[in-house]
């Protein structure tokens, strides 16, 4: 009996140590290998998880494939569970290119000074949010939302939280106190309309593009849910490229990535479906000054 306890402890000690030892050897070898061939590094792309995870995976895998074919780099999509996790990955230089929302791109660029917003869809220059409610709820204007239960999308979302909050505040509604209970954060746009449809919440706000796609594909029952307010335009989603790309992948890498993104969707149905667009255009950091200002006003960026 005594022996076998000593056995357990010894085995655990020896094997955990052995396991650590092995890895160390391996990493040093790989590190040396990395120094010789820099281009072997994988170009990692990410996207904010604002929609159904499986759908996001399909769309982004298609982007990775096309990027890889056109730039000759090894490209991989790295899924993440929440918006902040992706921003952190970007800050650490582990994500080289990310499909951010307006707010997350501003957060990311504040954390990584050399990062740049490079490409967007035409609709991102005039993006909108929709406010939805259940049919027959009696809500027809933003002012009617007082005393009703309400859900945003993710707290880091531009079209699901920041801008809807801004337009609510403009209308004299304080989301923290004027709703029935505190506002909910559903986490994603898909979840938001599902929560309204199931009746879990009386009203909510989401990304117009996700809403239109859901209506078109019949994912939402328009007999049950209706749009009662559409916000004015603002700048939203964009591809933001990390400052370390030229250093890791070579001088021309950034331009090559940009050219490839601008040539999308090409004939890829997955990309067309995911982004709901037939072309991409150039953008620049300055376009997002308004978002930053609003975020500072609402104390989301300090």
């Amino acid at each position, binding site marked *: 009996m005594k022996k076998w306890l000593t056995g357990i402890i010894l085995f655990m000690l020896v094997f955990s140590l052995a396991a650590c030892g092995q890895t160390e050897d391996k990493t040093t070898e790989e590190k040396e290998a990395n120094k010789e061939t820099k281009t072997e590094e994988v170009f990692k792309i990410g996207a904010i998880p604002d929609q159904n995870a499986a759908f996001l995976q399909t769309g982004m895998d298609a982007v990775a494939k096309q990027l890889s074919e056109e730039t000759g780099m090894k490209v991989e999509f790295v899924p993440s*569970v*929440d918006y902040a996790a992706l921003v952190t990955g970007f800050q650490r230089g582990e994500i080289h290119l990310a499909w951010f929302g307006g707010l997350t791109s501003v957060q990311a660029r504040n954390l990584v000074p050399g990062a740049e917003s490079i490409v967007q869809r035409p609709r991102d220059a005039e993006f909108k949010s929709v406010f939805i409610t259940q049919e027959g709820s009696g809500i027809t204007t933003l002012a009617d939302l007082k005393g009703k239960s309400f859900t945003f999308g993710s707290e880091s979302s531009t079209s699901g939280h920041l801008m809807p909050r801004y337009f609510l505040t403009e209308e004299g509604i304080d989301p923290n106190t004027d709703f029935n209970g505190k506002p909910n954060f559903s986490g994603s746009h898909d979840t938001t309309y599902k929560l309204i449809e199931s009746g879990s*919440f009386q009203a909510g706000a989401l990304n117009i593009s996700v809403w239109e796609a859901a209506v078109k594909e019949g994912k939402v029952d328009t007999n049950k849910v209706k749009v009662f307010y559409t916000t004015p335009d603002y700048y939203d989603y964009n591809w933001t490229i990390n400052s370390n790309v030229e250093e890791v992948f070579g001088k021309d890498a950034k331009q090559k990535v940009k050219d490839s993104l601008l040539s999308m969707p090409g004939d890829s149905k997955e990309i067309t479906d995911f982004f709901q667009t037939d072309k991409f255009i150039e953008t620049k950091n300055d376009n997002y000054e308004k978002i930053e200002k609003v975020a500072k006003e609402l104390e989301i960026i300090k």
Partner: protein
Amino acid sequence: MMKRIPSLQLHKRFILTVLLLAVFVWSLTSIHWNSELFHAGGIPTMLQIVEGLIQPNVEPRILLVGLESAWITLAYAVAGMSLAIIYAFIVGVLASGTLTSSNFSRFISKVFFRGILGFTRSIHELIWAWLFVAAVGLSPYAAILALAIPYGGILGRIFADMLNDVPKEPIIALKAAGSSRLQTLFYGYLPLVWADFISYTMYRFECAIRSSAIMSFVGLGGLGFQIQLALADLKYDAVWTFVFYLIALVILVDAWSHWVRMGLTNHKRIKGFGSGWMSVLFATLLVVGSWIYITIGENARLFELLSEKNMEYAKKFFGGLLGINQENPAFLDAESWALALRLTMETLEMSIMAIGFSTIVAFITVIPAARNIANGNLTLKKRWYNWPMFGLIRLLYIFSRSVPELVWAMMIIFIFKPGILPGALALALHNFGILGKLWAEVIEDMDPRPIRNLATAGASKIEIFFYGVLPIVLPRFLTYILYRWEVIMRTTIVVGFVGAGGLGMDFKLAMSYFDYTQITLLLLCYMILVLIADFASETTRKAVK
């Protein structure tokens, strides 16, 4: 001991019970009780969730994903525990003071190392995970270290306590024979405590499985990750499939640890290739398999944790927490403090409500859940429904405690409005099963003679409970309530993550907005709460004894 309870002692207990009840009622007043607590659509959502429970998704694809995630969860838990044991062993020995000679240095090492153990276990594993992810990135080691640190803290403290409690005679004999300190440790202390230590570690291993499952919340894989994804897509049937995997995993580990503990406490020598060796072999295979999987399968390198880049990020991150180069750090701002303290109060109320709810449910269910009542030994009465009731309630207990609080909270938040009530309910759902199980064991261990006396005198079931069972078991019931309350306190911050109110909710927002000094402030408030809970619970427990 129970023969003559001094009347003062009785009063003390009575006063304490009334006091605890009063605190619970006070916590209830913080909620406006009306039908508005539910969402307009809370009931339909609940029905959808129940529908998923009855008809879980059994598509082969989902089942396969579940199997793979269950393995990841197990591997992280095993790897985390193996590190925890090493940490607990080293720091536990130092904290016990068995290696030091002079009284003074023993005192210093006790205070210092016990302090370390206390600090590491006071912070919830999910908070550690988040800190590690921020500092070293999304590596499996973030999850493993996050598990190893608080679990090592708990194990280390228990280990140190055990070493301090060993009978002195064998140690003195060894010393007299001229053995060195290290020799005394290995040949004197360790052989005396190992059986208890192993059985406690096995008990903790079951908890580690659940903790490992919720690690996914910060973006690390496993069953929790799948549960979270399925919940985000509102696929309740798949949610339950993964939850059932988790329950199965917990039950298996529970059965194994029960088996090992039985083998250890019975002290029966098993001849030949017995159960002990089987367990050692199995444990070894698990540990080796897990580490191989993590280092090779997941391609995670421990070495990389200490890379220059990580050091720089860690420095930047902790600098941010300390408010370096910040104009107006939240923890120096009176207004922020006022707000955070209000949340702290809310969190305290949530924890009290949670333990209150779990106490009520456990209280109602505990009698039929005791084995000696089910088989009629205690009350000398047998009813046909005794065993089915026993089975049903025990199943309910296992179900309730196998699902982590966080997962309960994620579901409940669809039914109730965001606030402290859903948080309290989630915590209660997880804890009533644990409380019920512990209580049932207390009843099983009690002296049956007074009860049999009552029963033969013709007392009804309710009379037996209130006049026979309750007076005997109450002190231990109270001890367990207080102990669970401590644990609940540490977990309140975690249920808040998903919108269930209190400090956790703001913690999540501060994380999303990269507001580091606010995070520090909330962590400070959290530590204060944990300290208060530890202190209050310890003093009350002493009073009960």
